[in-house]
């Protein structure tokens, strides 16, 4: 894949330094490695960089600690909130459990699992057709999938809620079922595009050899093409999961009553509940955060590659 990687292999320090700069290069080869010419040597710039890094860490990562500390603190509000819990308790989780947070989490997991599976299957099939076959109207189909990307989902939310209540032709009411959330997630233009790009790069020789052996289309996809697509499937999987977990409007409009909510949407129920404090809301937030955190930490390489690649092609 021609995707730019976040940790690219850089040429090592040049071994034929010219004339005057020899000394500088031998001592600080790394200074040509970054746009700002950061230096590893302890210096004023070095100290400044460490300071700035600490600030970045405090601004972007430290707030997450308050979610955790607040969730384990008996009754957090204002000053009792800190980066570390005072006297930790699981009470908040117990109360959140009584308000059905585990059911919401269950909804979320079913939707995320089912949605991701459907999305991967549907997008892989479509990408296989677009990448490994030539047929009439190919460009048009490609454009259609591209359009699903450009179509803001917020914009179709209102008519979509009507469609979910009465699916055309079959007249099914998907509202209040997990299908109401899962099915609209199936065709994701980004996955189709990315997998298509990736599959195009697979040499045709492999396919031709298999075809001569009389391998059918489905087996070809399953046994020949897919094993070669593992990195791209990884990217599609991670980005798909994060995208599905982030869904807010869709579960909201697909729900018939609040018990159908996903855990992220259900946070607002906990918040507006006058009987529970912010500790319980934070316990809910922790529960909603952990699955995406696990996926991110395990597969961040794929994720970062995908965002960079998708954006450069977008």
């Amino acid at each position, binding site marked *: 894949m021609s995707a730019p990687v976040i940790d690219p292999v850089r040429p090592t320090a040049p071994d034929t330094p010219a004339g005057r700069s020899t000394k500088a290069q031998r001592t600080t080869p790394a200074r040509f490695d970054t746009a700002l010419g950061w230096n590893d040597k302890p210096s004023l710039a070095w100290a400044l960089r460490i300071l700035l890094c600490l600030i970045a860490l405090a601004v972007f990562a430290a707030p997450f600690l308050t979610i955790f500390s607040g969730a384990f603190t008996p009754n957090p509000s204002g000053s009792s909130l800190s980066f570390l819990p005072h006297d930790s308790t699981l009470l908040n989780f117990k109360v959140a459990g009584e308000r059905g947070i585990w059911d919401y989490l269950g909804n979320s997991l079913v939707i995320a699992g089912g949605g991701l599976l459907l999305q991967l299957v549907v997008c892989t*099939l479509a990408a296989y057709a677009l990448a490994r076959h030539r047929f009439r109207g190919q460009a048009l189909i490609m454009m259609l999938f591209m359009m699903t990307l450009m179509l803001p989902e917020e914009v179709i939310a209102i008519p979509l809620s009507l469609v979910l209540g009465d699916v055309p032709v079959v007249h099914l009411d998907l509202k209040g079922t997990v299908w109401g959330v899962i099915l609209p997630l199936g065709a994701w233009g980004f996955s189709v595009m990315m997998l298509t790009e990736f599959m195009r790069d697979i040499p045709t020789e492999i396919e031709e050899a298999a075809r001569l052996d009389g391998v059918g289309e489905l087996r070809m996809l399953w046994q020949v093409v897919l094993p070669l697509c593992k990195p791209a499937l990884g990217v599609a999987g991670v980005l798909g999961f994060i995208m599905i977990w982030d869904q807010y409007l869709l579960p909201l409009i697909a729900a018939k009553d609040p018990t159908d909510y996903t855990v992220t949407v259900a946070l607002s129920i906990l918040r507006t509940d006058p009987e529970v404090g912010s500790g319980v809301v934070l316990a809910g937030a922790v529960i909603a955060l952990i699955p995406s955190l696990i996926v991110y930490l395990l597969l961040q390489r794929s994720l970062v590659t995908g965002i960079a690649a998708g954006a450069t092609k977008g």
Partner: protein
Amino acid sequence: MTATVPAPAARRVFGVLGKKAVVPWLFLAPGLLLALVFKFWPMAKGIWLSFFDVRPFLGDQWIGLDNYTRVLADHRFQDAIGHTLVLGLGQSLGAILLGFALALLLEGQARSLKILRTAVFLPAVTATAVVGELWRLMYYPTSDGLLNSGLHLLGLGPVQFLDNPDIALYSTMAMGIWIWAPYNMVILLAGLAGVDRSLYEAAAMDGVSLWQRLRYITLPAIRPALMIVLTLATIRGLRVFTEVYVLTGGGPAGSTDVWMTRAYTLGFTRNDIGGASAASVVLLCVTLLLTVMVNYLRKRGEAR
């Protein structure tokens, strides 16, 4: 690709006969079906409904452009345009500048930098609803709130971040920047990685300043990445919904109401499906227009 295909004649014949020609469509069918039913049909339905007075059980009534004139004349929608533009532009520019700064700061191969990048990227992978709860907490309005206690140390009074109509929009913007800056950082880091290292070296030999180096080597090289970030951010800015919905819900007193939260309220709270559809179609047209325009400009920029 064409050269390796054996017996092109056979393939052509099969193509005409249809057996081979059907295969790709079978693979495409599930995706096309789902896109049709859950994307394009709702879009068409939305456009259609925007010309009707939608009355459940009574039957819809054609009213032409009335929904559009009603929505566009509604002062709350007019206010929402302003909020959307301020929020969209401020959030986009802020997130790009901060993302660029982060990319410059955290560029490098050291292991510690990789860990730092992992940590800084967290906001971008966290569900918006969770981020909203987190920021509600940070914006806690009493003087012992997280941000307010920091301000207290500086001798500043407690700020009503989300309850003051003059400030709430900017509080929302700050959260948006916080979410999107790390995301932009990743794209820009990929751009920075593509800069030719020998240029930096040559520049060092010519004794150019750091500023010149950034201005004449780095910036031109990452211009494509920058353009992408800008495009994505602009379009995202216009359709902003979840961030506002989970943080302020459009309040206080409508001071953070953006176009989509307004449309949502109209459609789901007031049950004015026609009006909400018209508002959505307006946004769709603006978004599409902007996308086409930006793509055109980008193509022209690349061609030059």
